[in-house]
């Protein structure tokens, strides 16, 4: 269920835009922050709110990398493997982290704590290699520094 607080934030987003539908991306961000992913149930609620079919909500969810249709690990760790980062060892770091965290073939740790993935350029090319940990950037990494950043995660 979309909470009342989330609903209030969505209404505020709607009020700033010329058309209701424009607040769909903000609404997805708000709801996902609370619930972790966009379930069929949430898509139905959002569909009602935005007067569109739930399938249309899910189409938008699947178009954007940052929206998830499935339950997620508690933390997302994305190593940038685009060209400038790769030139400075990002792919080696990625493999080391894969081994260190012992992630499964989908990139998840067994305890549901971390999902490890790779990502395209995050606008930190000069500070490579780098990774995004949830909404925080960790830059100028080596393996030790990356491990320490991950240890802090609950």
């Amino acid at each position, binding site marked *: 269920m979309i909470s009342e607080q989330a609903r209030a934030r969505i209404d505020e987003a709607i009020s700033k835009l010329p058309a209701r*539908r424009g607040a*769909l991306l903000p609404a*997805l961000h708000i709801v996902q922050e609370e619930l972790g992913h966009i379930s069929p149930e949430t898509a139905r609620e959002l569909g009602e709110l935005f007067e569109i079919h739930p399938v249309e909500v899910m189409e938008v969810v699947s178009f954007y990398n940052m929206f998830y249709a499935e339950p997620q690990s508690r933390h997302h760790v994305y190593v940038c493997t685009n*060209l400038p980062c790769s*030139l400075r060892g990002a792919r080696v770091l990625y493999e080391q982290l894969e081994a260190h965290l012992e992630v499964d073939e989908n990139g998840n740790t067994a305890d549901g704590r971390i999902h490890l993935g790779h990502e395209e350029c995050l606008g930190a090319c000069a500070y490579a290699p780098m990774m995004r940990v949830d909404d925080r950037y960790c830059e100028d990494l080596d393996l030790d520094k990356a491990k320490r950043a991950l240890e802090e995660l609950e």
Partner: protein
Amino acid sequence: MLKVPYVTGYLTERFADDDFATLEGYERAGGYRAARKALTEMAPADVIELVKGSGLQGRGGAGFSAGLKWSFMPTDTDQPKYLVCNADESEPGSFKDRILLERGAHQMLEGILIAAWATGAEKTFIYIRGEYAHPARELQRCVDEAYAKRYLGENVMGTGFRHDVVVTRGAGAYICGEETGLLESLEGKKGQPRKKPPFPAQYGAFGMPTTVNNVETFSHVPHIVERGADWFRGIGTEKSPGNTVFGVSGHVERPGLYELPLGTRLDEIIFEHAGGVPNGRKVKGVIPGGMSMPILPAGQLDVPMANEALRERKTMLGTGGIMVMDDTTCMVRVACVITYFFRDESCGQCTQCREGTGWLNKIVNRIERGAGEPEDLAILVDIAGKMEGQTICAFADAAAWPVQGLMRHFRADFEAHIEHKKCPFSESFAL
């Protein structure tokens, strides 16, 4: 926090100062004076003429005249008019907008306010890429400060002019940087680019007349209003005036941001400013303007970083994101990384793009594995050629150009893979 540029100029010289990121600090540095001047002393048409006369080119990649674009906005309409600030910065190798947002949001907002006055826009949508969570928070804080001080909202600076700014976040799709993909996304849809015409000045955000400009483009505007078109034209080259913020990454001693005049030579940026290539290595190739722009070989770095000069070498300034590769680098691996990105990010509407990006990636991967055939090279060139100029948006061209550049200057690397049936560059960066 992002490091401030190693070389600064009028855009970034105060970025190291925390005070500058607050409204009061920005005002102490002379901030919002230009907006006051525009709104109280200049007619909208005069502002457009000034910016046209300054020769300011868009800094989002295409380099179109900002003043000319503003002049396309209809003046005889009852429809609401909008501005969009493109803060989607996703072109690999580019990270200048991030610092302009984190450390210079008020400068950009002042530019937006001036552009709004010039075009008669009632609202600006700032579309910031979803991953830029920290810059988005900084930006929102500055927007709130500007509202509190009546620099935004009703009756701006007591002039009766009203302007609202709404910050919206993207959600991880490169194509939402393309201006009409952005508009679709802003409307709550998949970010699939629109067919043009109609152009945004006729049919833009929510169907209304709209002008889209890049973060950096807006950031130059207060300086032009404050110091005049002649001052601006005195910096850079005749055809490409002003400074820009170059991002340098890859194999250099000092990767980072450098604010320098357009027309600064590429070799000067790499060797004098960024300290050259580490470990006694030499440059092999340089991508001069973000990943969509064709690569230049080591022998062609004596080029001024301005479109008129770069075009002669079959490449462009793009976003000014300079990626340096040393002589250990395997250019087939570079092709693998680049084509993977474009295959992954194609929005899928056009066959040439959807299929072409996949084929390019498949063929270069095959060559890298040592399973390429001699005719693969002709096929690559043929596919890339057929992707150009055929599609709804310029993404397909942007995917074709880097492959064409690599084939133009580093064909020998591809041939060596095919001949030896393996990658001969054992010291290259790992894939």
